């Protein structure tokens, strides 16, 4: 019998401070980026408002100090009622999609998944398009958003039932069910659009598929902010269990975590968060995939660091992308989802490449 080989004699192991330091640096840099982005997006736009005037408008609205006669009503509207709520909505939606992407990757145990593989986006699209095409709007102006949210939840329910086997949501079944529902609903969306045969309808459908922040207003900010905050707290409370989920159900069980139950909670949180974000801003692609993945490259897969980093990165990213969408082809405005896709696709391929190199050592 051999004796145990204790390995080379070294000092006792200590937790790697590297990732913790990177996480703190990331919090600082991303917060700075987010604030800069928010500032830039209320300064830039088609209507020229001098920076000093923008600052005075903000101070007046926030503190009541200043003289409203020093700027025009239209300047006030542009800064306070258009640019600022839009920038804040971009931050909330970016953060929300990044968080739901992070959670989805844990849910389906695949670092290259995003919330849209679960079929929610097309559920929202069908709901919204149905309202637009039929003109049936019992709730007035918010009917489309509510229908989109209900559509997302209906898609979620179908995927849930399809993916459920033996009391557990198996990751592969989730992805396949999500794909099946996505294909079916994309057919329904196309059918509805063809039936309507109207350019206005097509325009509205494009809104849902590519996403847009143009509808932003102050009243639309409370709901996503509350849902994002609640989801974040729920996820951070489960951060350690989420970490064990990445190692497989058996390992999680050995560590006292019921993977089946955790996955049900997680799926519900993702549906709620994604549903609200998509209902407000449409199907903005790639953020839920790229941002969590990039955050993982920075700070690893420990959700206690990953979730906050992904939140900040998602918020900053969408705020900056929206500035590009508004100004790149000035005076025309690009759908923000088009810009995220154009930036996202090559970034995704690069991440796959980095990943392949990291895991195979090639």
């Amino acid at each position, binding site marked *: 019998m051999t004796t145990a080989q204790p390995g080379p004699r070294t000092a006792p192991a200590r937790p790697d401070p590297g990732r913790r330091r990177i996480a703190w640096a990331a919090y600082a840099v991303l917060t700075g980026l987010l604030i800069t982005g928010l500032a830039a997006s209320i300064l830039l736009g088609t209507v020229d408002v001098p920076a000093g005037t923008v600052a005075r408008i903000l101070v007046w609205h926030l503190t009541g100090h200043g003289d409203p006669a020093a700027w025009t009503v239209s300047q006030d509207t542009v800064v306070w009622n258009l640019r600022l709520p839009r920038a804040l909505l971009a931050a909330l939606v970016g953060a929300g999609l990044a968080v739901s992407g992070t959670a989805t990757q844990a849910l389906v145990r695949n670092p290259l998944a995003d919330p849209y593989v679960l079929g929610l986006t097309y559920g929202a699209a069908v709901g919204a398009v149905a309202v637009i095409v039929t003109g049936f709007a019992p709730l007035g102006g918010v009917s489309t958003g509510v229908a989109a949210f209900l559509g997302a939840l209906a898609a979620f329910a179908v995927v849930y039932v399809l993916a459920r086997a033996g009391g557990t949501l198996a990751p592969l079944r989730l992805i396949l069910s999500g794909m099946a529902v996505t294909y079916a609903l994309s057919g329904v969306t196309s059918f509805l659009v063809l039936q309507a045969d109207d350019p206005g309808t097509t325009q509205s459908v494009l809104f849902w598929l590519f996403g847009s922040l143009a509808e932003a207003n102050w009243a639309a900010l409370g709901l996503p902010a509350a849902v994002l905050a609640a989801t974040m707290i729920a996820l951070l*409370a489960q951060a350690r269990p989420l970490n064990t989920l990445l190692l*497989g159900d*058996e390992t999680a069980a050995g560590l006292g975590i019921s993977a089946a139950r955790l996955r049900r909670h997680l799926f519900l949180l993702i549906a709620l968060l994604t549903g609200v974000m998509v209902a407000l801003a449409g199907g903005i692609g790639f953020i839920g995939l790229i941002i969590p993945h990039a955050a993982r490259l920075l700070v690893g897969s420990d959700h206690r660091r990953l979730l906050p980093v992904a939140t900040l990165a998602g918020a900053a990213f969408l705020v900056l992308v929206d500035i590009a969408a508004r100004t790149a082809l000035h005076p025309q405005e690009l759908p923000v989802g088009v810009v995220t896709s154009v930036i996202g696709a090559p970034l995704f391929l690069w991440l796959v490449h980095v990943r392949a190199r990291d895991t195979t050592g090639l």
Partner: protein
Amino acid sequence: MTTLTLHDVHITLAGTPIVTGVDLTAASGRIVGIIGPNGSGKSTLLRAVYRHLPLTRGAITVDGEDLWRLTPRRAAQLVAALPQETRSDFDVTAWEMAAMGRTPHKRPFAPDTAEDSKIVSDALAHAGVTHLARRRYTTLSGGEKQRVLLARALAQRAPVLVLDEPTNHLDVRHQFELLDLVTSSGTTVVAALHDLNLAAAYCDHLYVLAEGRVVTDGPPHDVLTPRLVRDVFGVDAHVISVPGTGTPHLIFRSGR
């Protein structure tokens, strides 16, 4: 002093009975081996001990506490597991992997304390992988990975350790190393083992499983007879005694 007891355990999967009426006792600090051919129910039985698969009948207790009546978290404080599969599609360092052993001791939002770090550090040292702490788990060799996973189980500080084929995919030296580490940990151990000679060398007591039932149990030299090996595994074997230790050693003969 901790005793693990399985009493009349039945497990049915998708309508098929896999384990039917197993009684087993692992007394304090003892190494209990479960041997048996493929499909005999070894892994299924162990999965019920670390609460991955539910029982259809019977009870599993640790010092009289019924594991399946406890919260999963409390159960994992009593039983640590080294399952066959641990996935690693995600970027996790060896330290982070071992530190996950602290999960059942942590409430929501509870930070890692200096005590946690000490426990993880000791577990890595005991498993001989201190030098790998900052390496990424995916980049480790099979033997290194298995020792990091053992460190995770040790960091759990549970009085009972369940091992499912812990020496799979390991070369002969790493098989011995791993089992040396396990037996020196001082906990009550239940291990499913494929290799009958490793089971004979390391276990105090063996249970032989076939078709979900215990065929026989006892100390290795009583259990591992040519007749049992032929009846249960369908292979002819000659038993010799290892010089020095006296443990039984099987030499297999091809049926041809």
